[in-house]
């Protein structure tokens, strides 16, 4: 094995690891006893520098100006343009979380907060690039463990501890299911390397393996009925962490699901589709109907995440190249919008000192017009309104699901019923999205408004601007990203 090349290939990850240790080390040594604000500032700068450097190397790797090992033994790493793009986007979004974490100075354990954020990002990067059952599982656990720990960072809040415990116990059980499923997959194929598996035929063992995998990944994606942790965690975790749970970890889990389903042949596929379709329908129902009753904004976003995971499966059910691209594209644009929405909430509520109800945002159009406009963009994208990216993502999912009919079949053989159901549910979802927007944009400012935002700060401002622009731009001009994601791996 060429270690020099391996080192160059993993340079982005190494840079992040260096930044992680630097942040910890500086915080423990030089900054002992410094003001909290100072420690946050330094940890933020070091972490951001690490991610920016890693991102720069990744961009060079995608542009093929830096050499990359395309794949390593046992499929541990599969670095094509599409997986590298995904990794780069994860790093970029992780970079976006940092300023939000810096603003909301929720814990005295500053460097641990940032180190965990970097660890989670690192793990996500490995999940999307790994094609080895064990490697991907370990990476996914790295993500999960970091997220469990971050959820509980707000030690002043009992609810936060409760949510973290719930997250941990549910998550541990789900990981057990996932590992069990992966071991069955290994047992049936004798392979750990996903790239070596092709054309898995129907067998009860494999169906069982995949069903267990659906349980495990269903938890990470917050699919109903494995969603019970989501509302509590979204509501009680520090808002930037909730944003990162709702975006980055979803991307990682969706990418892993697609990679695991790639070797499935058509006989096995027919056995798995009913399970996936049932999960999709159930998630759409639970998410959308659950969201209707919520008065807490972050809880509402959690239910919206459940519903969106349901839409996502509509593309998975297609089992086609277009379906896989559409799933990745959708989870990306969903994550951008979701992270943006959480970002706005984080910026607006960090001086509130309690959970923000939807009514607390009344009159934001007057007090913070820029944030209200950004929030409009994010929520409309979540609702799937053109010309924003969320619409195109949803459209592509439905497109793929209907295209899924085999070549010779007639026009009515696609998954019309599933698409029709998803469309009905998106009409329902518009009701609660508009209810949120009503508080931000319609309600008069003096109507029980409790939000008095502190200064946004340039870093958080730039992050939200870039996210909003990305949501608009990907809706208007998706072709470049689609081409990058489509690159066969």
């Amino acid at each position, binding site marked *: 094995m060429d270690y020099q090349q391996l080192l160059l290939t993993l340079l982005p990850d190494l840079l992040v690891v260096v930044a992680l240790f630097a942040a910890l080390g500086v915080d423990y040594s030089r900054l002992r006893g410094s003001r909290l604000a100072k420690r946050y500032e330094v940890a933020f700068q070091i972490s951001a520098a690490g991610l920016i450097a890693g991102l720069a190397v990744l961009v060079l790797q995608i542009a093929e100006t830096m050499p990359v090992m395309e794949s390593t033994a046992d499929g541990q790493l599969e670095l094509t343009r599409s997986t590298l793009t995904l990794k780069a986007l994860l790093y970029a979004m992780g970079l976006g979380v940092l300023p939000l974490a810096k603003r909301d100075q929720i814990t005295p354990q500053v460097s641990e907060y940032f180190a965990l954020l970097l660890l989670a990002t690192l793990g996500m990067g490995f999940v999307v690039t790994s094609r080895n059952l064990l490697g991907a599982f370990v990476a996914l656990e790295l993500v999960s463990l970091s997220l469990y720990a971050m959820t509980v960072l707000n030690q002043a809040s009992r609810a936060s501890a409760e949510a973290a415990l719930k997250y941990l116990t549910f998550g541990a059980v789900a990981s057990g299911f996932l590992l069990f499923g992966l071991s069955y997959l290994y047992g049936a194929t004798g392979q750990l390397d996903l790239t070596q598996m092709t054309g898995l035929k129907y067998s009860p063992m494999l169906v069982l393996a995949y069903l267990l995998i659906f349980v495990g990944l269903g938890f990470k994606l917050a699919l109903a009925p494995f969603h019970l942790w989501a509302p509590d965690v979204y509501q009680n975790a520090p808002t930037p962490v909730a944003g990162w749970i709702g975006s980055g970890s979803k991307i990682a889990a969706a990418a892993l699901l697609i990679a695991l389903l790639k070797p499935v042949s058509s006989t096995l596929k027919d056995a798995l589709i009913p399970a996936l379709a049932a999960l999709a329908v159930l998630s759409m129902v639970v998410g959308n109907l659950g969201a209707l009753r919520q008065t807490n904004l972050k809880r509402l976003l959690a239910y919206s995440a459940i519903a969106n995971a349901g839409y996502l499966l509509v593309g998975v059910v297609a089992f086609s190249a277009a379906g896989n691209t559409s799933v990745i594209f959708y989870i990306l644009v969903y994550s951008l919008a979701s992270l943006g929405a959480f970002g706005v909430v984080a910026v607006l509520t960090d001086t509130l000192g309690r959970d923000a109800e939807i009514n607390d945002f009344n009159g934001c*159009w007057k007090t913070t017009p820029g944030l209200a406009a950004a929030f409009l963009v994010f929520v*409309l994208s979540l609702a799937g*309104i*053109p*010309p924003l990216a969320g*619409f*195109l993502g949803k*459209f*592509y999912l*439905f*497109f793929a699901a*209907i*295209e899924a*009919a085999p070549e010779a079949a007639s*026009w*009515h053989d*696609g998954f*019309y019923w599933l*698409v*029709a159901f998803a*469309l*009905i549910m*998106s*009409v329902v979802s*518009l*009701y609660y999205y*508009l209810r949120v927007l*009503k508080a931000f*944009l*319609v309600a008069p400012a003096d109507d029980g408004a409790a939000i008095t935002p502190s200064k946004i700060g340039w870093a958080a401002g730039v992050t939200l601007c870039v996210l909003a622009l990305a949501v608009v731009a990907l809706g208007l001009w*998706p*072709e470049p990203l*689609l*081409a990058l994601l*489509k690159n066969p791996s």
Partner: protein
Amino acid sequence: MTALLTIILSFIGALVCGLMPSSAHRRIRWVALAVAAAGLAVSMVCCVKYSGGEFVILLEADWIPSLGIGFITGYDGISLPLLLVTGLVAVCGVLFSWTLETRANQFYAFYFALIGGVYGVFLSLDLFLLFVFYEIAVVPKYFLIAIWGGARRQFAAMKLVLYSFGGSALVLLGMLALYFGSGLTPLTFDLRELMGANFSRDLQVVVFPLIFVGFAIMAGMWPFHTWAPTGHVAAPTAASMLLAGVVMKLGAYGCLRVAVGLLPAGAQDWASWVAVVAVINIVYGALVALKQDDFKYVIGYSSVSHMGFVLLGIATLNLTGMTGAVLQMFSHGVIGALLFALVGTVIYSRTKTRMLDELHRLIDRMPGIAWVFIVAGLASMGLPGFSGFVSELYVLIGAWGSLSGWIVAGAGAGILLTFGYTLVKIHEAFFRERSPAVDNQAETAYPPMTLPEKTGVAILLGAALLIGLCPWLLTDKISPSLKLMLERFPN
């Protein structure tokens, strides 16, 4: 290329107005007027220069080639009258909102986002692009009604948006079926290609109602019309002018261009059902209008009734009837907008009430306005000399040609009912005496119309009169394009 300016200018106008400070509402309204007038001017130039019946292609570019989506824009004789009515209503909407001050910047941002979407629908020759613009026009309506509307505005706005979105969901499903069922290689959303595609009959029969109903919900088709009266009534004047004048036409345009244009065999199978629903629209709308006490609800239900004529014209599937349908879209766009402007702004801003039984002999107290309203009401009723007469005549003649006598008789009864409610409501509003004990100011006179109001009335009434006297100005553009569409119909 010039016609694309309508879309571009509207979106730029939305951005510019949105970024101006709301305290500058005097400057904002002039900017808004300029943007709207520019759009009108562009549509008029296009209308004057157009002849033939073929599509004029404006811009044809790849957008998302991997999904067969292009940015293809153009217009023909069917879209032109609608572009024109959009321009007219946009200008007059600004004129009738001249005194608006609260959040004026945001008002015009949403206003022009809506108008840009509407222009976009009329100029799209790609099914996906058309759908995108159609959806862009939905959300601004919510905010226009929910922020600046009257009583029960939250409910009305939500209802309207959910109905619109429900319709869009049907259209999207039908659209995907069309795409994958077209049998074209490569698959495409290009409307011109899809018009030439050979859709199987069973596809046409299943997909036609999906797309037709999806669009017709926006056109106020019974029994999905209930968003229209509540929405119209709760909306601020400019928004109800746009809703009645333009947004309902979006739905009707979609029915004509997409449902009938792409699925002629499906249309033939379903035509009689559409005609029945259309007649229910006409008669039911008129009957309900007769029972209303709120002046704005009267106009709201009369819109539902008049849109029935558009649907009936489409259902005839012959040249005369469909020309009548397009002409009726223009005619109702202009006259409906005028009536909403008169009731919602001109009369309401003076009387502070819209309840008919609280109005006392307005003919004495605001004679000028009353006479303008009476003329407008007669125009809406179908008085010869105004565009409504011509278009309804075309529709009825067309219906004689291809539909059963019962349908025509029903529509005729609807016209009689229209006479009835128009005259009754004009009497109640302007000539009826109320017991003076209730109203101590019953004898005070109201101020006359302001200059912007006069201008707006003159533009809309003038347009209705011009087309009423010289219908060939529009029918010469409409008929050749419809003829091309009808040539593709199977016998």
